């Protein structure tokens, strides 16, 4: 059935709003949010004072881009260890009266960052969620097999989105553990969902479990119309090809979905697959130069910085995502006018090899077409400064790698050829043998910090 123009959008008027109007709306909301934060958030009172800015100084979007400092997780960490407040001074409403949910982020460093949300925060996030779900083709009466982790902020918003659109959810745990993956296989086999939603790591565990159980993965996914993946990892072409090879679901029906849980900022791609759409009436997204922190024009590469335009409990102005990417303001082929972004990778995940920065995405580009290559690998950092060799721990697709030694030789040859580095390769038994935090494989493991 061909959908009418109106059915294509969840909220057509807003999603196709002319850019000047969006920007006008954003400026209005930025001003209001700054005013709110300045008067209610201990952290911003302090940081605005330090930067010598008052809300009255912000008259245009360019004022906001240049005068307000970028907020980093490290700033909050410093504030937290100084005051002992887990919110790092961000909490702006009385905890017991207004806060509905307290979420702790993944906590890669051990101590989680804590954020709080009010009723209205969740409602706005649910609007964003519903819009993005609709855009990716989720429709009423679909059955979605969705994986999640209880403490993750996305779970409640996602469930709310399902309720609004009237989609039936089967919810299960996201952790890629063998017994959980077995649950997933059995549930999918019997319930035949139309949508599969889960990160690649969970999917890999499902493939592994299915093979062990003697299930045909293509058959298992035969009812699946859409695959929704990403969830914090970058969905490259290699990844899509591998998912297609395993499941039979073509790349155009594999959607990239991601975001940053702390500012409730999520994005996803539409059927054009040309960058990830955002909701500009709810967030202000811009790329900034990594060194100078100057705002960048559409398409230029830098750090993605996000401002939440509605948060009450823990306002987030110019939140530095620490992800390198680009933001595009051009209208998308699907008709939506809000910005799209692409994300290349985390600055912190780049390994320093002889002074050269090697991103996980670089490795993937170089090795991507070796048969049996999977995106599951960890680079080991074993010295504080530049390293002379690249040490990699990799999981492979065992069906395709007949001779692991030959595979290692090929990997080493290519890395030598493209990056001119010597490498040490270790192949692990299964994906779950790699270090991971939450549902994400650790891309760069700092061995100097390991006992």
């Amino acid at each position, binding site marked *: 059935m061909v959908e009418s123009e109106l059915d294509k959008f969840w909220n057509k008027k807003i999603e196709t709003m002319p850019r000047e109007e969006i920007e006008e709306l954003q400026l209005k909301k930025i001003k209001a949010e700054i005013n709110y934060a300045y008067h209610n958030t201990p952290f911003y009172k302090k940081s605005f004072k330090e930067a010598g800015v008052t809300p009255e100084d912000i008259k245009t979007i360019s004022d906001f881009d240049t005068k307000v400092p970028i907020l980093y997780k490290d700033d909050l960490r410093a504030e937290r260890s100084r005051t002992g407040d*887990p919110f790092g001074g961000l909490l702006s409403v009385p905890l017991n009266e207004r806060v509905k949910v*307290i979420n702790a982020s993944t906590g890669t460093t051990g101590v989680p960052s804590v954020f709080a949300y009010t009723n209205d925060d969740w409602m706005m996030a649910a609007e964003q969620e519903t819009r993005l779900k609709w855009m990716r083709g989720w429709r009423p009466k679909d059955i979605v097999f969705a994986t999640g982790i209880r403490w993750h902020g996305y779970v409640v918003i996602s469930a709310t989105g399902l309720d609004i659109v009237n989609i039936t959810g089967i919810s299960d745990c996201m952790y890629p553990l063998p017994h959980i993956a077995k649950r997933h296989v059995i549930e999918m086999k019997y319930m035949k969902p139309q949508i599969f939603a889960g990160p690649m790591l969970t999917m890999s565990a499902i493939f592994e479990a299915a093979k062990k159980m003697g299930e045909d993965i293509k058959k298992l996914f035969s009812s699946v119309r859409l695959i929704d993946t990403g969830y914090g990892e970058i969905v490259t072409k290699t990844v899509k090809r591998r998912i297609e090879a395993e499941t039979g679901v073509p790349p155009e029906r594999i959607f990239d979905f991601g975001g940053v849980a702390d500012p409730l900022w999520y994005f996803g791609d539409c059927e054009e697959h040309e960058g990830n759409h955002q909701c500009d009436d709810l967030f202000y997204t811009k790329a900034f130069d990594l060194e100078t922190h100057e705002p960048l024009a559409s398409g230029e590469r830098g750090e993605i910085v996000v401002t939440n335009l509605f948060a009450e409990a823990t306002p987030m102005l110019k939140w530095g995502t620490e992800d390198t990417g680009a933001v595009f303001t051009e209208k998308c082929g699907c008709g939506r006018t809000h910005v799209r972004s692409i994300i290349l990778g985390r600055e912190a995940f780049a390994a320093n090899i002889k002074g050269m920065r090697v991103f996980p995405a670089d490795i993937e580009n170089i090795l991507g077409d070796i048969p049996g290559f999977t995106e599951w690998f960890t680079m080991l950092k074993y010295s504080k400064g530049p390293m002379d060799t690249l040490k990699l721990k990799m999981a492979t697709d065992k069906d395709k790698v007949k001779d692991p030694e030959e595979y290692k030789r090929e990997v080493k040859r290519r890395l030598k050829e493209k990056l001119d580095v010597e490498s040490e390769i270790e192949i692990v038994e299964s994906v779950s043998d790699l270090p991971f935090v939450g549902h994400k494989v650790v891309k760069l493991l700092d061995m100097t910090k390991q006992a």
Partner: protein
Amino acid sequence: MWRRNIETMPRKELEKLQEDSLKRQLKYVYDNTRFYNKKFKEAGVKPEDFKSLKDLERFPLTTKQDIKKEVTLDDPFGGRCAIPRDKIWGITPPPEPEIEEPPIMSISTEYEREVLVDHLTRHLVMIGFSSGDILELQASQWESIASLIEGHFRVRRTVQSLIPFTSIPIENTLFLLDAPRATYLTKFFKPDVIITTVDYAKLMTQELEKEKGDPKTAFRPKIVVHRFRPGSPLLDEKTREEFKKTWGGTHLSMIDLGYGGFYAMECLQCNGHHAWEDGFVVETVDPNTGQPVGPGEKGMLVFTNLYAEGTPLVRFVTGHNARLDTEPCGCGRTHVRIFLE
């Protein structure tokens, strides 16, 4: 009390209510599910044969094995689904962490959710939970308890929309950083009620010991509910005493079987798990003969839900031994109390 007139209903009235509900429910499952239609016919009973509560024993028991036998790839509910596709609100996977084929999947409707939210609200109010409190709920993503207690406020009804509270969700599937995360959040926010499981609570104690912390001062717990669920042990008296010593505070036990929305919780008197008999008929039967045991005697716990629309259960054998007490509790509630043996 959340619903005083129901919670303290005289037993005669309560039993009358159950009789009326059962008449309707037995007819509903007979007319709408292939599974029970066949089962009743095989046992030679008809819904009309049910005239008073005593007649329930003539109806066949339902074991997990009975359900599994009927589950096929084409009919994953084994003929138990009683509603059309568009009435399904949610699909619940089996509650056990490790499952085997064929799985027992359940369906719930909007109405069932509302009944269960009401049940859990009664339980939480019973243990003194009130609006503005902080609740830390440790559960696994696939369990339905979480979606009934926490969740969005204006979109669907949850306990949180009835008693506005602050929730701290924690994933209960034991994994890497989760115990430290739970410990950190508990230490800082000192929730008024913690719903945990015995083994997870022990893990949090270990986590605190690593940093030489003491749960008594670090968590300062008021009420800790230990959930007995598939894969997690029951809070026995010995463990309860240990927790009282190490953690301080009140430690209560809760039964969450994960099937049929059956929840039961101890009140502050710690004298048996309260189940809500306006929603369930609870029985104990001899595991060998299937015949009901005498009042107060030990037997296999069996329940029938009176409100379910999606995948109703009639005389479902839980696999746990229990004693029942129908005397009114010291707290004034008249509904049955369950003692797991």
